[in-house]
């Protein structure tokens, strides 16, 4: 349990986001539906779902910007609203811009720092850290999307928070920025912080996250590690190539196990793991030329898990789910 050690380094054990039966209605539309999950410290937890699945709403609920219709959510055991030094406890980057366009990046950060009596030195330090030094005195309205994201990161880290909540942080970043972001998230988690990052891009989460919370149409679909997530979605399928194909096929077929013809003379065994197939072949002295577990990609896993959810969705409810996952 490496993260336990890491958590202890910051001196607190109870560093979690905990949602219990979280539900949010906007008029007659249910944006978040009975969501319960826990986000642990020391690892990067990806918050995954198609566009419009309720990720941003959930994050607003955590930050107390929106009030849940039913249920509640706490950070480190308390409602965010009841925290004495909120920026020290949670740092947030929200997807929609949250910056006055007429104010410079420096003054934006300064005004937020001052609510907690955080010194000016800290503001300059973070401007340098996110690489906005040259544009810090420019009006934030002139910033590119990527510069806006960097300013958002500086805002999130201002109070040296034990929990970091980032909504689509990779949006608008160039490849170098995305690379930097990935390392930043790992670094934050390695220091024992709780890191909760949303994305609609499976591929991005595959590279960044350790744990996954997957939602669709506001409902929890999966709460698991990245490995388990893939394993769960991959059926037990093994591709086998052998000179004694027909003999092996006869030996393998059993209740719950089917064998079909794969491409170029191979056979596909459904219902057994690669080691089980290998053991059977060895026991009967059958030569094996290829034995490949067919693992689903994260994309496939995500699609198979969310497909059921998406099928309920009308076109207007979920914007381009396919495009969101494929990229």
């Amino acid at each position, binding site marked *: 349990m490496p993260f336990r050690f890491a958590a202890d380094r910051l001196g607190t054990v109870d560093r979690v986001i905990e949602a219990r039966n979280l539900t949010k209605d906007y008029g007659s539309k249910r944006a978040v539906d009975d969501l319960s999950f826990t986000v642990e410290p020391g690892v990067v937890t990806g918050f995954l779902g198609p566009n419009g699945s309720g990720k941003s709403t959930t994050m*607003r609920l955590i*930050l107390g910007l929106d009030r849940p219709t039913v249920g509640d959510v706490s950070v480190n055991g308390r409602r965010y609203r009841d925290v004495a030094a909120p920026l020290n406890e949670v740092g947030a980057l929200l997807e929609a811009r949250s910056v006055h366009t007429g104010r410079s990046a420096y003054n*934006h950060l300064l005004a937020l720092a001052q609510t907690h*009596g955080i010194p000016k030195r800290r503001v300059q330090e973070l401007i340098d850290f996110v690489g906005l030094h040259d544009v810090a005195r420019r009006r934030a309205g002139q910033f590119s999307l990527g510069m806006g994201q960097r300013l958002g990161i500086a805002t999130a880290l201002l109070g*040296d928070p034990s929990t970091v909540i980032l909504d689509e942080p990779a949006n608008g970043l160039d490849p170098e920025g995305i690379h930097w972001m990935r390392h930043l998230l790992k670094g934050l988690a390695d220091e024992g912080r709780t890191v909760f990052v949303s994305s609609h891009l499976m591929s991005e989460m595959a590279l960044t996250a350790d744990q996954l919370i997957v939602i669709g149409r506001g409902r929890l679909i999966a709460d698991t590690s990245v490995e388990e997530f893939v394993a769960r979605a991959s059926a037990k399928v093994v591709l086998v190539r052998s000179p004694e194909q027909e003999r092996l096929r006869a030996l393998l077929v059993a209740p719950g196990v089917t064998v079909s013809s794969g491409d170029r003379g191979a056979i596909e065994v459904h219902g057994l793991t690669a080691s089980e197939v290998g053991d059977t072949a060895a026991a009967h002295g059958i030569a094996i030329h290829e034995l490949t577990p067919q693992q689903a990609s994260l994309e496939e896993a995500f699609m198979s898990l969310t497909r059921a959810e998406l099928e309920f969705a009308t076109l207007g409810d979920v914007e381009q789910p396919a495009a969101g996952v494929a990229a």
Partner: protein
Amino acid sequence: MSSLAPAPRIPRLARTGRVTQLHVLVSEWTKLRSVRSTTWSLVAAFGSTIAIPAIAAAVVANHWPHMNAHDRADFQPLDVSLAGVQLAQLAIGVLGVLVITAEYSTGMIRASMTAVPRRLPVLWAKAAVYAAVVAALLTPAVVVGFVVSQAILSRRHIDIAFTAVGVPRVIFGAGLYLTVIGLFGLALGAIVRNTAGGIAAFAGLMFVLPPLMNVLPSSWNAAASPYVPLQAGEALMRLHRGDQLAPWTGFGVLCLYAAAAIALAAFLLRRRDV
């Protein structure tokens, strides 16, 4: 999962403070002074509060020999000095609306409320900082406008002395009036949360409501009109009482409107999603 390069070192914060009303006041002061449009609007309000009385006084002083006896008898030297307040009240009210609605239109409000999730300290601080700035800037402006315009009028010996009965109350009252008007605008902005709507609400209640009273039966109109915000507030700036309420009673009524609007804004801020 990738381990290509060491993670960037996140700078640590040695000492963390906590949210206090004083801290939020300092923050709101930074916000107010760091937006250029706000600064320019305040400078414009300051300048016009001095310049308009000066110009008006110069016009009257030049025209005085050509004015008939009736116009001369009607002339109120103090009104010339308050000519700038008429424009300033619009600017101050609209800026009051903007101080809060700009946070909603830009999304800044989400950052503000994430930093101060209890929310109300932000409203109190915004109101206090804006009121203090308006009072500190426009009270001297009204005084300077008075001194300059009366100096110009004195060439024709038609000026009024600062020491005349009621004049200090009118002059300093104008500063108070503008301050409360600013708070009224800010509260309306906080209730409506939208710039166009906030300005419409402010202009409607201040400047459209009084003429609208004329559609009422005249006895109702006479009874109700002194209580609309504009008339009530202006009572403080009248040297001689006409149809208005007594000066401080009228000002008290305006304060009640502003207080009620702020109370409603606070109630809604606690309840609504940001």
